[in-house]
């Protein structure tokens, strides 16, 4: 269509009369194409960027019974209490638990988790092994990643803290983690760390199944 009137107006026609020169009917498509591609670029960029990511989360069933669950080793447990002002309080195990606090940076809570993994790996003499994931990349897995992380957001925490904590689970490849409510004993522990954690299994079960 852009090639209409190829010869650019009537030149030498029969009759020999001098006629007024016809204007070329050719249209320059360049600006139109330019605009077209500009819009394509715009729509391409906006469509792909508009799609948000999702993060899967599986919660434990509420009807779970104490008899049905297998107890975990205390030394494998790491509890993260998500506090206000973007702080994470954490303690290991139950007996003689010491409360410590950190933040959500890569040097903060991630190191806490990795240190715990190393500790568990050493204690239980677990090896690291390499395995290909579904994309064919070779990834180093540690048996130590079988630590149990309990995430307990307090009422001062904001949603971002929870997502950050879950993100750390994905980054450090923690296999077993769960989100539970903070028990009153832990609230007391946070207020008065020197007093130590008084832990009751019944209360934990209550909190998980209520």
């Amino acid at each position, binding site marked *: 269509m852009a090639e209409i009137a190829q010869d650019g107006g009537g030149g030498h026609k029969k009759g020999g009369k001098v006629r007024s020169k016809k204007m070329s009917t050719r249209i320059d498509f360049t600006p139109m194409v330019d605009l077209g591609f500009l819009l*394509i670029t715009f729509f391409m960029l906006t469509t792909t960027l508009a799609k948000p990511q999702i993060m899967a989360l599986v919660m434990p069933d509420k009807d779970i019974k104490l008899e049905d669950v297998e107890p975990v080793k205390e030394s494998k447990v790491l509890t993260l209490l998500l506090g206000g002002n973007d702080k994470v309080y954490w303690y290991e195990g139950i007996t003689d638990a010491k409360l410590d606090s950190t933040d959500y940076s890569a040097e903060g809570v991630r190191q806490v988790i990795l240190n715990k993994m190393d500790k568990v790996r050493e204690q239980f003499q677990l090896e690291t092994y390499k395995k290909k994931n579904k994309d064919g990349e070779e990834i180093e897995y540690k048996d130590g990643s079988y630590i149990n992380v309990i995430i307990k957001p307090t009422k001062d925490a904001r949603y971002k803290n929870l997502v950050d904590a879950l993100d750390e689970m994905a980054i450090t490849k923690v296999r077993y983690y769960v989100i539970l409510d903070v028990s009153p004993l832990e609230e007391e522990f946070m207020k008065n760390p020197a007093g130590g954690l008084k832990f009751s299994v019944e209360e934990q079960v209550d909190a998980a199944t209520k």
Partner: protein
Amino acid sequence: MPKNKPKRSAPSIDMTAMCDVAFLLLTFFMLTAKAKPQETLVIDTPSSISETKLPDAGTLTVLLGKDGKIFLDMTGQHTRLDLITNIDTAYALKLSDEQKMKFANLGSFGVSRSQLKKFIDLPSAERTAFPAAGIPVDTADVNKSELADWIHRARLAQFRMKQSGKVKEEYVIIVKADRDTPYPAVQKVINTLTDIKVNKFNLITSMEGKAEKK
């Protein structure tokens, strides 16, 4: 055609094909681009490293604002129509067919059942200004919780639609909360979901940006 004279053509390029392709692509992208739905609730999602993309269809989204207001949004016109018909009969809201149709095309909503009729009747431009209080939640008794009821019925509606072949998939439950939403509000939603046996759901996050990491 006689071949004796080599034709001299102007040294111009035929733009037609390029133009055709350009506009074909343009049409495609314009049609696939989704018009941004009306933002009744402004939500700034937190970031994560997750790379799973949000599915296009078959999602039931619980939106949770900064102030803890709960809104609901679901895909599929057939399902929404079925759902509102179901709700209408169950609670005798006395909605007309036109109102039901309006609901089917509505975006997200965050009003209690009693206010729903009023909300639907508003012209779309005024809906954002409607003082929506969010969908009421009762964490003590799940049977009284409107949110739980909506989600439960919506899932059933989607299931019915799947059986009749109008949709392909069952609902994926999505929670979209603001990064500054206080945890107790999030907890309410999570508790409601687990109460009605939705133990697996997804959290919407945005792409991890370097600038965002503190």
